[in-house]
């Protein structure tokens, strides 16, 4: 179903998220696509990246000279840190999240629903990986953003009225960024905040009643970007 759509690339998705971040914000990045965000933040934007294994101030990748086996992110990849970084134990690290001290948390997902529930840790009967920190990360950050491709490999939309997979968190997601656009869970429908150029609402893979239009602050309507 998505084969011929003018979808956003991963980089375009990442840049949409980066545009949502305020200067000085603190940010937790889940493993997978969100990790790319660290590499797309412009140098003049001071963002404090938290990784739940116990570091605040992730800056990017080390060189072969500076790499350290004891300096990794939650995806177990080597990282480097900026001046002003700090290290702490895992209880403090998750307390930062649970206690509401991190501004934005970006996670990957398998399904998101209109109620804001997220499923991203388990497919019954298939390989089990464990929830890791995801069930904690969805509680506490001031804004929870989920990034995922809009359609599964089988062409099914991953934005649903209600998730069918086991939940990671119930009513926790604030924004959803897919390769089709940006959406806000509204309870029984998603509000369309932005669509990738050329995407129309009837290509979003769910009945019309699942989508609600919203005006942008500048008065333009997202529909105007579409061929609808």
């Amino acid at each position, binding site marked *: 179903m998505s084969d011929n759509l003018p979808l956003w690339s991963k980089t375009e998705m990442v840049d949409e998220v980066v545009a949502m971040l305020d200067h000085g914000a603190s940010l937790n990045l889940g493993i997978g696509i969100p990790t790319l965000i660290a590499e797309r933040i412009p140098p003049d934007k001071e963002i404090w990246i938290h990784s739940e294994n*116990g570091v605040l101030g992730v800056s990017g990748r*080390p060189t072969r000279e500076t790499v350290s086996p004891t300096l990794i992110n939650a995806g177990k990849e080597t990282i480097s840190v900026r001046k002003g970084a700090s290290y702490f134990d*895992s209880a403090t690290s998750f307390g930062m999240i649970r206690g509401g001290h991190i501004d934005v948390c970006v996670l990957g997902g398998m399904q998101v629903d209109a109620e804001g529930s997220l499923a991203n840790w388990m497919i019954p009967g298939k390989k*089990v990986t464990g929830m890791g920190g995801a069930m904690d990360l969805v509680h506490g950050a001031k804004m929870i953003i989920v990034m995922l491709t809009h359609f599964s490999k089988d062409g099914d939309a991953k934005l649903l009225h209600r998730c069918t997979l086991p*939940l990671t968190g119930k009513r926790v997601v604030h924004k959803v960024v897919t390769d089709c656009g940006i959406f806000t869970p509204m309870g029984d429908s998603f509000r369309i905040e932005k669509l990738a150029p050329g995407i129309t609402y009837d290509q979003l893979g769910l009945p019309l009643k699942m989508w609600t239009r919203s005006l942008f602050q500048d008065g333009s309507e997202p529909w105007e970007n579409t061929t609808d």
Partner: protein
Amino acid sequence: MTSKVYANAVAALFDLRDGISLMSGGFGLCGIPENSIQEIRRQGIKNIHAISNNIGNSGRGLAWLLKQKQISAATCSYVGGNPDLEEQMLAGEVQVTLVPQGTFSERIRAAGMGIRGFYTPAGYGTLVAEGKEERVFDVPCILELPLGADFAIIKAERGDRFGNLWFKETARNFSPLMAMAARVTIVEVEQLVELGEIEPENVHVPGVFVQRIYQGVDYENAIEIPMYAEQ
């Protein structure tokens, strides 16, 4: 008190036995107690209940014990990247209890700090909440209980004979919490230093939480996923 300092892993791990619960610090392979794990592998004790975030990774760390079928139960948050565990879990050889990582950390801290239970929103409305008491505060929460262990094996960068510890970078992770939560905490260090060499304000784990300490050897300090800046 006899001294807390032991000559090596063999001396420090003298009283492990089949069926113990065993916490092991580290995130993936970062900060794992390599010497203690190898000694447990040598001893071949069985039916270990391992409590560790990953129970090894990429065939190393606690996966060395999995390969020898020494672990019969595991409490952890993530089994991805650990084919030995996935395989034995699916075969029913290891009973795995998955705990959300923040709850895992906080339960271990609770055991160490004498907190008998706490309410957290993490896991509410999910499979994790099944069978647990739910209660609504400002948000719906579930009751979680402390998670302690018979033994903890920990690796620190520096430690002194009283057991004061200091960790490097992100190697700290669960280790200070586990040091508090186990009945017997056994620490191996890169550098055994003199009392006072760790500045009192910068001690990460006060020695009162540590029962045994030894100088480790031959650290591999493996990097799981090396990623480099384009140069």
